[in-house]
């Protein structure tokens, strides 16, 4: 089976939407959107969170139907009422959130969705798996249990699945947010190969650089409308700076200057933390000595990791996803036992303390799985803001919940942290990713914090929220908190950190001062060269 279905090279776009309108209570998510997605083109969709991209994708993927408007596939008007119909039309979608069965193996996940009366044929599936993973250039054990893979690997499986049934259209909803620079580059090559085979690719990103690098055509959405398009012919003749300028104008309106969000966008990756006044002579507040953990099957264990963080210092941990960063964060937070080594906070050993005890000592952990473990989706924003304090005064009195105070506290946090939610009683799963992250940041930020661990703090956030989250990290560090930032984005680490360690296969390969040329040394460490 070829990767893409035999293509009828007619002049009609592979998929077109015409005057799509989609309302949600109180919001027009899509307001008369018309776009053509052509074969053999990488069509970039840009826009802030809430611009309507995900809604549009949801409509194409059959997750929801538009209020009005027409969908066309090869010029023929169609109705896409379910994800299955979308797949049958050759539209494969990779969503931001992983939608795979954690308890099944990679291959089993891919074999799902076949006709129920037919036996799943392992040999054929395995061949298909090898074919696609080769095209993608990824190496995944087809028999590994999915839940044991890192988020990045899980996403690669998602991409394989989207291509599984061939495909007219491949939709990628922010696929690069979890990838390393090398991974992004690889993805770009994969996309080009697929494009050359005639697949129409819809590529959603927040990163301008990627839009310019990979896009054949760029459309910008704002507040549910298409506010501008750079067609193929024009895009080919423009420089990156010209494209950047134009897109910023489209995204933020003509008045946007090179400040605020637009500034962050334009100078992405060019900023470096002006080495804050961290007093290097001070004793480290947080020390990790030769810490190892046991690994679950298919998982990378932490092996003899050693580093320390001074008050007010930001220590970064770089590395390709799945090299033990998650396990490290969990062992530091107390969610998984220390097999050997020693963790101390202000001289006090933490090894035997659980999450709650460490929290009382001032340890905070902001997880990268905001809905998976960071929050209880069905419970209110108010409850989630206090989920780590249940039973403690002043919100509980002798075990009784003082709901009035809990809500008051939530309203206060909602106001000070600019959390966009209909009310403090809204189930938190209804909020956007950026707002859920604000809830987590609000929950962990308190005067008693001494060590804060951020795991991929800006993963999946739009520019505005990314900027807010980074500002918060720097602000909290400035108040004397020892900060650890785990990220797969080097730009982020060089912007935030004083020193950066590189993790690979569970080990900390080396620690680099964040100064001129740090990127190169980090890159060397990431690729396996021993140094420092």
């Amino acid at each position, binding site marked *: 089976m070829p990767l893409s279905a035999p293509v009828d090279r007619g002049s009609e776009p592979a998929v077109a939407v015409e005057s799509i309108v989609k309302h949600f209570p109180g919001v027009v998510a899509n307001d008369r959107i018309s776009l053509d997605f052509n074969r053999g083109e990488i069509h970039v969709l840009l826009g802030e969170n809430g611009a309507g991209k*995900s809604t549009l994708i949801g409509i194409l993927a059959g997750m929801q139907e538009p209020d009005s408007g027409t969908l066309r596939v090869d010029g023929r008007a169609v109705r896409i009422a379910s994800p299955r119909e979308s797949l049958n039309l050759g539209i494969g979608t990779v969503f931001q959130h992983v939608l795979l069965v954690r308890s099944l193996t990679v291959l089993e996940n891919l074999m799902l969705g076949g006709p129920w009366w037919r036996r799943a044929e392992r040999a054929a599936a395995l061949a298909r798996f090898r074919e696609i993973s080769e095209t993608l250039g990824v190496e995944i054990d087809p028999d590994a249990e999915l839940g044991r893979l890192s988020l990045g690997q899980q996403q690669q499986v998602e991409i394989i699945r989207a291509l599984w049934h061939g495909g007219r259209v491949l939709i990628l909803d922010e696929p690069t947010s979890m990838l390393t620079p090398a991974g992004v580059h690889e993805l770009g090559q994969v996309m080009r190969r697929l494009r050359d085979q005639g697949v129409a690719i819809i590529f959603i990103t927040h990163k301008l650089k990627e839009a310019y690098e990979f896009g054949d055509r760029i459309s910008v959405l704002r507040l549910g409308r298409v506010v501008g398009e750079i067609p193929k012919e024009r895009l080919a003749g423009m420089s990156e700076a010209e494209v950047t300028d134009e897109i910023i104008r489209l995204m933020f309106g003509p008045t946007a200057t090179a400040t605020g969000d637009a500034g962050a966008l334009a100078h992405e990756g060019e900023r470096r933390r002006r080495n804050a006044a961290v007093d290097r002579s001070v004793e480290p507040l947080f020390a990790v000595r030769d810490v190892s953990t046991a690994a679950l099957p298919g998982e990378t264990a932490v092996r003899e990791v050693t580093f320390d963080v001074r008050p007010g210092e930001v220590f970064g941990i770089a590395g390709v996803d799945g090299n033990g960063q998650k396990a490290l964060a969990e062992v530091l937070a107390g969610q998984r036992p220390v097999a050997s080594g020693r963790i101390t906070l202000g001289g006090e050993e933490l090894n035997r303390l659980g999450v709650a005890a460490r929290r009382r000592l001032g340890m905070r952990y902001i997880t990268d799985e905001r809905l998976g473990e960071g929050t209880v989706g069905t419970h209110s924003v108010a409850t989630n803001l206090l989920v780590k304090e*249940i039973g403690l005064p002043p919100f509980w009195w002798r075990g009784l919940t003082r709901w009035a105070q809990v809500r008051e506290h939530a309203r206060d946090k909602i106001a000070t942290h600019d959390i966009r939610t209909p009310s403090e009683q809204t189930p938190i799963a209804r909020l956007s990713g950026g707002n859920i992250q604000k809830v987590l940041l609000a929950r962990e930020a308190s005067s008693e914090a001494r060590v804060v661990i951020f795991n991929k703090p800006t993963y999946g956030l739009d520019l505005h929220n990314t900027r807010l989250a980074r500002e918060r990290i720097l602000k909290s560090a400035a108040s004397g908190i020892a900060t650890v930032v785990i990220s797969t984005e080097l730009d982020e680490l060089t912007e935030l950190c004083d020193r950066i360690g590189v993790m690979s296969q569970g080990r900390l390969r080396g620690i680099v001062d964040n100064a001129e040329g740090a990127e190169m040394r980090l890159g060397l460490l990431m690729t396996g060269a021993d140094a420092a």
Partner: protein
Amino acid sequence: MTIDAEGELTVGTEPDRRRPAWRDALAATLRVLLPVLLALLAGALIILALGKDPLTYYAYVVRRGLLSPTGLEATVTRMAPLLLIAAGLIVAFRAGIWNLGVDGQFLLAAVVVAALAPELIVFLPRWLTVLLCFAAGALVGAVWSLIPAFLKARHGVNEIITTLMMSFLGISLANVLIKIPFNDPTTTVPQTATLPVEDRLPRLFDTTVHSGVLLALVAVILVHLMMTRTAFGLKLQVVGANPRAALHAGLNITGLTFATFALSAGLTGLGGAVEILGVWGTVRADWNPAYGLLVIPLVFLARFHGVAVIGFVLFFAVLMIGGESAARRLDVPHFFVLVLVALLLVFLALVEYLDHRRRKSRID
């Protein structure tokens, strides 16, 4: 899994156009009453098919179960064990633990209490006997849930399977206990010694209703308050809704799991104790009311709400008591009540499904 439609929307500061609150209240009431009405309607068709008059049947059930003084007393008395089981189920279900072994826990507790009470009453005052028997019933129920609790907490073994299996074992063990160690040699059928009527739970006023009913009502309401108003209840709910978030938040999941099982099975065991001390005074080897499997649908129908469940238990008790009379008088099989419960479940699922669709279409 579905993508949350609102996932990416940023909600503006303008107040969203909410529909009036009374409409939500109406929808909630309908969601509860509709399955009941539909089940009664479908039941009526079945009675018609049996060649009986459904109106006569229902009227008779209501008259005997609710409107006649003796019927009402029997109904209220029947509510006691049902409510205690419901309380136990609410604790477990809200904590995300599916304790389906309530029948074994109930029967085993009942048998132990039935054996214990006639022995204790000889040398202890009634109030102390009753208290000790309550404690024993709760303890037996809790102990019978220890193995599923351990397996769940330590090894993640699905508690639906283990509690069901323990339930079968419990029922068999109860049988063995009645026939061998606790057997009363003075009777011809295998049964435990009988607690004299005057030593059973005190009656309320001049009725046949025993005071265990009050205990059951208080238990249900306390459980409801515990789940909604206390730190402990909130912790249980967090563990139930997202165990990984509970781990992340530093909750003692193992301890909470054990506590949930113990509370749930303990309340169920208390139900067994109340039924023996209040009504029967003994357990016969062929006695197994299997209330648990009947209460589970009611708890779902009440959406784990402690106050709402009281209404459903009342409704169901009326059906049971009235249905038993009607079986004798109108020759409608007494298990027709079970048919009604089954219909209730079917329509509950159906209404739930339609409501889900309706909400989804409103959000979209």
